[in-house]
């Protein structure tokens, strides 16, 4: 799919879905309805949306602790997701996973992950499955800049490169690792500069521009699908909120955050481009936002009205139900 009004509108809407879903989840956290840690993706929407707009439904996605965006961009149902954040029985994971473990296997979204860097090798494994079956599915793994220091980055990408698997490694370099500025604990500014150690292409992209992300990802995904092996993409991005809710953010100034919100909001960027090309009237814009607002209101209603899981669910799903031999 090359760049078109339709594609842009879809991407634009998906970014809004992520933005409003999370802002609502944030509000519901303050109301005490959503519990646990909430890692806000707001600000980084262009990465998930730009990448996932290139994916087929049967392509695989693996995420991180900050994966609401990855899930929604892959097509996950915001009602089930919100219910999951509420810990309700109707959640994507029946209330057992929560924000850090949202998954939707019907979309081959194989899960967010609470362990930094833990999705890289499994994404490589999903790509191996695709290659063995000859189905030309691609696996995409999202991970933070913090994950690039972990051994799993090295071992996972090493195996993906060795076997030339259809996998794309997408590092969301938002310049912070929990409460530490990345450059306090890293030597290379750009994570894509590590690609050479694995003899795969590495490319850095402006993660605040959905079109740039889309195009870079398209090339990498096409290469992967056609047997050309993995790519390491670094998307330079920024999170508008703290690491998780409650973060006092002493490690950065409000001015810095404000500047990013003003000048590098991916939603604004795409709106400007679309307006420029006359692909989005004000009316259309309002209509899209209204649709999304409805969707999110619906999600909250669904979550609100859903039941909590039954106590008996504590012991289900540990192993498959009919654990039978032969």
């Amino acid at each position, binding site marked *: 799919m090359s760049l078109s009004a339709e594609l842009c509108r879809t991407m634009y809407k998906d970014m809004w879905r992520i933005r409003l879903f999370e802002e609502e989840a944030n509000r519901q956290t303050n109301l005490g309805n959503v519990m646990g840690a909430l890692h806000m993706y707001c600000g980084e929407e262009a990465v998930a949306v730009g990448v996932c707009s290139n994916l087929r439904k049967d392509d*695989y996605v*693996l995420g991180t602790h900050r994966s609401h965006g990855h899930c929604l961009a892959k097509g996950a149902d915001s009602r089930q997701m919100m219910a999951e954040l509420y810990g309700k029985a109707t*959640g*994507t*994971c*029946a*209330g*057992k*996973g929560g924000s850090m*473990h949202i*998954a*939707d*296997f019907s979309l*081959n979204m*194989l*899960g967010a*992950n*609470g*362990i930094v860097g*833990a999705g*890289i*090798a*499994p*994404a*490589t*494994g*999903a*790509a*191996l*499955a*695709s290659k*063995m*079956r000859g189905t030309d599915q691609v*696996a995409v793994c999202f991970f933070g800049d913090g994950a690039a220091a972990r*051994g*799993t980055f*090295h*071992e*996972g990408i*090493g*195996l993906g490169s*060795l*076997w030339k698997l259809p996998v794309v490694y997408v590092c969301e370099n938002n310049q912070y690792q929990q409460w530490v500025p990345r450059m306090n604990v890293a030597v290379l500014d750009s994570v894509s500069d590590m690609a050479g150690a694995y003899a795969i292409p590495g490319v850095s992209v402006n993660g605040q521009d959905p079109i740039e992300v889309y195009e870079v990802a398209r090339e990498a995904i096409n290469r992967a699908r056609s047997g050309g092996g993995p790519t390491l993409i670094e998307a330079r991005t920024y999170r508008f909120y703290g690491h998780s809710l409650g973060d006092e953010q002493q490690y950065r100034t409000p001015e810095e955050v404000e500047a990013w919100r003003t000048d590098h909001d991916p939603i604004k960027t795409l709106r400007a481009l679309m307006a420029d090309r006359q692909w989005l009237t004000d009316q259309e814009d309002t209509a899209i936002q209204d649709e999304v607002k409805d969707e999110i209101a619906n999600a909250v209603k669904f979550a609100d009205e859903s039941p909590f899981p039954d106590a008996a669910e504590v012991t*289900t*799903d*540990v*192993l*498959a139900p009919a*654990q*039978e*031999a*032969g």
Partner: protein
Amino acid sequence: MMRTITFGEALREALHEEMERDDTVFVMGEDVITHGGPYKVTQGIAERFPGRIFETPIAEAGIVGVGVGAAMAGMHPVVEIMYLDFITCAMDEVVNQAAKMRYMTGGQASVPMVIRLPCGAGRLLAAQHSQIMESWFMHVPGVQVAVPSTPSDGKGLLKTAVRSPDPVLFFEYKRTYTSKGEVPEGEYTIPFGQADIKRDGEDATIVAVGPMVQKSLEAAVLLEDEGYDVEVVDPRTLSPLDTETICESVRRTGRAVVCGEDSSFAGSVSEIAAMIGENCFGDLKAPVVRIGSPHVPMPFSAALVKHVVPEVPNITAAVEQVIS
């Protein structure tokens, strides 16, 4: 008469049969092609099933992690970790990923992966190449722990493991690879969670794990001379654990010795002993005694190793203790 093959051959046969049966089954590990792994269990697979065996660099976390992903995507990886000790390099992948994926996703994920773990004392390989650690994995909900003690159990349990929709840690005691036994040809499986009474007896129950089964059977013969008729129960899987069969036996005999090769402090034998104490209290005529290695790393020198690995006399002494 049934043919007699080694434990290693039985495992190899199980793998070949399962790969024949289901083309989503594949093998991954270090040196699994060029050498068939250190114990040659994967020999012949590269020739017979090309494209379904992957020789890896030294990257245990990567290997197990790739296994998790492939399994979630519908394949059935059988991963070989060259020595159990190296699974320490992939514990997040086993414990936080493979084991918990089904639960965390509310039942969506299935991780049908077998991790084969050559373990225990071998030819004097010292502290970093001789460990067992069954109890670690018993303690992890979401994984299963199989510990075959004979060639026929090896084959049947490995076939069940490969077919399981959930991860299996498959313990292969190094010193068992060359042991021989009768093994049926062709298809059979052994259900998980079903202990096997390897010998009937009335006077005491020995619950024996892995290679301690054979040693317990030897001890039982020696104890016969003293007039003791000892039952030997082999749990075969430690998780799930067949508490019923164990308890039924102990209630009958009133006396129990639990033996493992690993250190008994917080070891697999501790769970079994505690469980027996909890469930069979009224029938116990003596304390439940545990047999295992002392709580030390495996030393190198043969002069020391012989005081570490539990042997037949340790078992006979323990049985005498609980009976007298």
